[in-house]
């Protein structure tokens, strides 16, 4: 069973040389720490930056330079700054190759719910609806089950949707799964030591698994 860094590390292997990537808040942010050497990527922050660098050294924080999570960050050689409209313009026109974000629920047809829980204070969808509606390639990073022990991979989302038919791949502490074009989750890899049966029990949506699903490889 993977910890959050393990999920991030596994997702990092999906990033190809030359990719522009948007990382959501939470586990997706950790992915930046595991991008393999020799793979050149540029991170987009939807508040208006391409080429996001690491956190600044202490004392070098710049209030004018933050990411979409409002964290102080840095630029890198090749960075560019732009306004919010152009930022979402490049997202809508699919110039961002990969979006990685968290989710509360994903359905077997690729719907995602990650912004609103009825009865709780709603903070807003931020840029998530734009990202999931536009990206060519979206990977969800999340726990396989919620705190109540219920599967987050469902036949149909129960929470208000963020986007429909958009998620292509899910990486959890248990598994890597593809969302099949015709519907259903296809088990691609198991976390080390996790059985197909265990994953099946944790997955309420339709699960397709071959007899010999390989364990994840990390490098």
């Amino acid at each position, binding site marked *: 069973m993977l910890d959050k860094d393990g999920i991030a590390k596994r997702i990092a292997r999906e990033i190809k040389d030359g990719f522009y990537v948007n990382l959501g808040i939470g586990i997706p942010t950790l992915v930046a720490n595991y991008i393999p050497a020799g793979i050149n990527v540029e991170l987009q922050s939807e508040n208006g930056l391409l080429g996001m660098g690491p956190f600044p050294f202490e004392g070098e924080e710049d209030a004018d330079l933050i990411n979409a999570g*409002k964290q102080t960050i840095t630029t890198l050689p090749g960075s560019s700054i732009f306004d919010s409209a152009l930022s979402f313009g490049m997202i809508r026109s699919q110039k961002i190759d990969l979006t990685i974000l968290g989710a509360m629920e994903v359905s077997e047809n690729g719907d995602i719910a990650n912004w609103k829980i009825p009865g709780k204070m709603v903070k807003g969808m931020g840029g998530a609806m734009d990202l999931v509606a536009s990206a060519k390639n979206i990977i969800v990073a999340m726990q396989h089950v919620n705190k109540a022990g219920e599967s987050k991979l469902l036949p149909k989302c129960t929470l208000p949707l963020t986007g429909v038919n958009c998620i292509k791949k899910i990486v959890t502490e248990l598994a890597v799964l593809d969302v099949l074009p015709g519907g259903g989750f296809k088990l691609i890899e198991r976390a080390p030591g996790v059985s197909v049966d265990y994953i099946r029990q944790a997955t309420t949506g339709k699960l397709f698994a071959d007899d010999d699903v390989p364990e994840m490889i990390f490098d």
Partner: protein
Amino acid sequence: MINKVVSGADEAISDIENGNTLMLGGFGLCGIPENCITALVKKGVKDLTCISNNAGVDDFGIGLMLQKRQVKKMISSYVGENAEFERQLLSGELEVELIPQGTLATRCMASGYGMPAIFTPAGVGTEVAEGKEVRNFNGKDYLMEYAFDADFAIVKAWKGDTAGNLIFRSTSRNFNPVMAMAGKITIAEVEELVEAGELDPDHIHTPGVFVHRIFQGANYEKRIEQRTVRTKN
């Protein structure tokens, strides 16, 4: 050269009235018009509709206007951590319209570009789409969203000149340029106001034609919401 300079925030916002719709630039606490917000709190103008990506924190940014119950409605994409905001929302004192961040930015841009409506895929199939026209282009569904119609846009830039030209610094640019284009009246506060001719025309982000009033602000706090650092090895 058409001179846009006013004496300060108080003069710049003097004709904002109860019930007006304001756009306020900034993302989180980054690039917000601090001086104008202070002046709006001082003026005590009420029943405002505020279009701004976020609603500030309890004691800074638009949060200061919320504390004084000046805001009737917020149109935002994310309202963050703000206890007073949450209290007013749950008690029904405050109306909130949450819209996707890209839709928010593009509806501002549409206004500045004289386009009455735009198409975006954001929100298709979700509750955001309720009551909206859905249109299919090349096999993909889009929502038609309307340009904003704001009485005032209030933005904050790094440098500006007496002709109203604006230059933003780093990610404090965010919503400011698109809102600057979208106000019936646009007010810009800047950290440094220079004479026309001192800014390189190629470096200007917002041409002065969009800006009606400009002044050099004072005492910028530029508060950091999430101070994240690394340590030198």
